[in-house]
């Protein structure tokens, strides 16, 4: 194929740019809850984010990547003209990255996921044709954008209610916190490990049966739990701290739990959002390599690695500042609330990742925070902002789409000399 190296080079650069943008802006939301509730310092948060975003992207990012790569566009409609798909995917990457940067700069509530899906659908409809889009798949994805915040909201509501019943609203919250917090820590380790084992590990050569996966998940849950118990034991209860607010020591125990949910959140975010950057890259790579539009080729490991590295780069160069800013603004969130929101959101996101559904981590987290709020857990929530976030869906999709169409025709004008469709 002519310009093959060009296409590969551009794909890698754009993909890295997009991943950088995700690391720079998007990760902040996932990590800020832990920083805001002072469960983690900025430095710890960055370390946790770097390690677990990387792990999530690399270990569990495959499913969503393949959805972005080949689940949205019916590649058979561009047979004979594989370049069209290359231009489109490049355009989608560029437009989503640009849109993400602009919106982040302006503080607009957009989602990376919505941008990239909007962009892919946009170029496909205009550049290839309405029939080239798997509309049933796209509508499933769109439905998941409504379902995921709701699901995580429900989960957060029930997790937080259970915390109230078992720990906070009891006669001896401290004793009960020591007793039950390890159980929640187990849940974090168990859920993350289970979803990863069940769906993610084929690409690194591990193919496990359901039972094996379950066993490994239980073991890793128990391991996380024992680390947690150890950390809780190390907390020295200081009665002086409780003089102003009687739950200060209890919240310190929840702080331990929140370190684990923060890891889970970073892992979940990496597993779902890396696809937004590497999904299109993977599509381009497989077309260039085979010269045809292959629907079956497998995902190259180095592509996931590219995304993971990009996210960590974004985090290191810029994202830490955003985490600090966002963290400062959500100090009202105590660890007992923050963990409920994070556990609910992380579970929802990894389940979506396992199912291959690209969802918005931030929207899922917003849903979880609302869930805790409905359980009378949060001092005040600004519903106007929540409404703006909902509205942003309607703006983000066409914005990503239109930008992608512009870039698509630009790229086509530069490189294309094949038959006109």
């Amino acid at each position, binding site marked *: 194929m002519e310009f093959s190296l060009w296409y590969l080079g551009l794909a890698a650069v754009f993909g890295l740019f997009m991943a950088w943008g995700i690391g720079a*802006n998007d990760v*902040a*939301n996932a990590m*800020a809850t832990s920083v*805001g509730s002072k469960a983690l310092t900025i430095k710890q948060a960055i370390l946790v984010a770097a390690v677990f975003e990387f792990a999530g992207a690399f270990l569990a990012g495959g499913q969503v990547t393949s959805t972005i790569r080949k689940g949205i566009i019916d590649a058979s409609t561009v047979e004979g003209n594989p370049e069209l798909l290359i231009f489109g995917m490049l355009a989608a990457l560029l437009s989503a990255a640009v849109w993400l940067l602009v919106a*982040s*700069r*302006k*503080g*607009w*509530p957009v989602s990376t996921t919505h941008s990239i899906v909007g962009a892919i659908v946009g170029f496909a409809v205009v550049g290839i044709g309405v029939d080239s889009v798997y509309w049933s798949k796209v509508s499933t994805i769109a439905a998941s954008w409504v379902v995921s915040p709701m699901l995580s909201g429900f989960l957060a509501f029930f997790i*937080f*209610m259970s915390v*109230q019943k078992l720990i*906070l*609203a*009891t*006669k001896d*919250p401290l004793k009960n916190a020591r007793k039950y917090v390890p159980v929640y820590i187990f849940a974090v380790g168990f859920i993350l490990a289970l979803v990863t084992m069940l769906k993610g590990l084929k690409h690194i050569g591990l193919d496990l049966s359901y039972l094996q996966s379950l066993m490994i998940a239980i073991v890793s849950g128990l391991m996380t739990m024992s680390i947690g118990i150890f950390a809780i034991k190390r907390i020295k209860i200081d009665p002086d701290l409780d003089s102003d*607010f*009687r*739950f200060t020591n209890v919240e310190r125990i929840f702080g331990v739990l929140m370190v684990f949910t923060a890891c889970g959140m970073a892992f979940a975010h990496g597993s779902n959002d890396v696809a937004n950057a590497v999904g299109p890259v993977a599509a381009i790579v497989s077309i260039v390599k085979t010269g045809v539009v292959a629907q079956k080729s497998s995902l190259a490991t180095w592509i996931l690695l590219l995304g993971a590295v990009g996210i960590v780069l974004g985090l290191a160069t810029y994202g830490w*500042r*955003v985490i600090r*800013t*966002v*963290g*400062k*603004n*959500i100090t*009202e*969130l*105590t660890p*007992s609330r923050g963990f409920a929101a994070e556990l609910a959101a992380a579970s929802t996101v990894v389940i979506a990742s396992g199912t291959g559904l690209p969802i918005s981590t*931030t929207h899922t*987290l*917003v849903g979880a*925070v609302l869930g805790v*709020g409905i*359980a*009378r*857990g*949060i*001092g*005040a*929530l*600004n*519903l*106007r*902002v*929540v409404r*703006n*976030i909902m509205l942003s869906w309607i703006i983000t999709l066409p914005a990503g789409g239109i930008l992608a169409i512009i870039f698509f025709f630009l790229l086509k004008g530069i490189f294309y000399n094949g038959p006109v469709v």
Partner: protein
Amino acid sequence: MSGSYFSAIFGKSPVRPLQEHMEKILSCVSELAPFTKAVLAGKQEAIATHHRNIVTMENEADALKKELRLRLPSTLFMPIDRRDVLEVLTMQDMVAGSARDVAGLIVGREMKIPKSMAKTYKKLIKRCIDASKQAYIAISELDELIETGFGRVERKRVGRLLIKLDVIEQNTDDLQVQLRSELFNLEADLQPVDVMFLYKVIESTGTIADRAQRVGSRLQLMLAR
């Protein structure tokens, strides 16, 4: 740059400002103790200073009240009802208002409290301050209430605090009755106008405890929801 819209969904909780307001009210009312001491000793300079302090703190509390009201837009979603917050705030504000009324009345008419009433009046002032303090302690439980999602254990705890507030208020009623009878026995020796205003001072002072108790009742209504 803002970087993220996520943090914007967290509004400012009204609980801490509400507690700060009540703290200010308590220090305003507490100033009545040295004020009364100065009145009984007839030290004009000290009277003026403490009166000024009371007025200043009442004004500061007023400013806090206005700020909190502005901070509660209708788009805020809160674990406690907006109307409850505003009404508790109004009740708290009225406690300081009546403290200022008492001081203002005594200063304005350059009143002297008869020697034989001094002991009981000091007791009444002390109990009024106690009532405000008890209301403050109850309001301080608001963050614990929210932490536990208005759990039963915590609600009971606040209930006990409020029963104690009722007892204190009852006590101030008894002291007022006693003061009136003491004043009645002195009526023949005093100027009629002074007598009238002394009755007025006793009543106004008692109002402080009444209103502190109403802060508690409003809090109790909040718990009942």
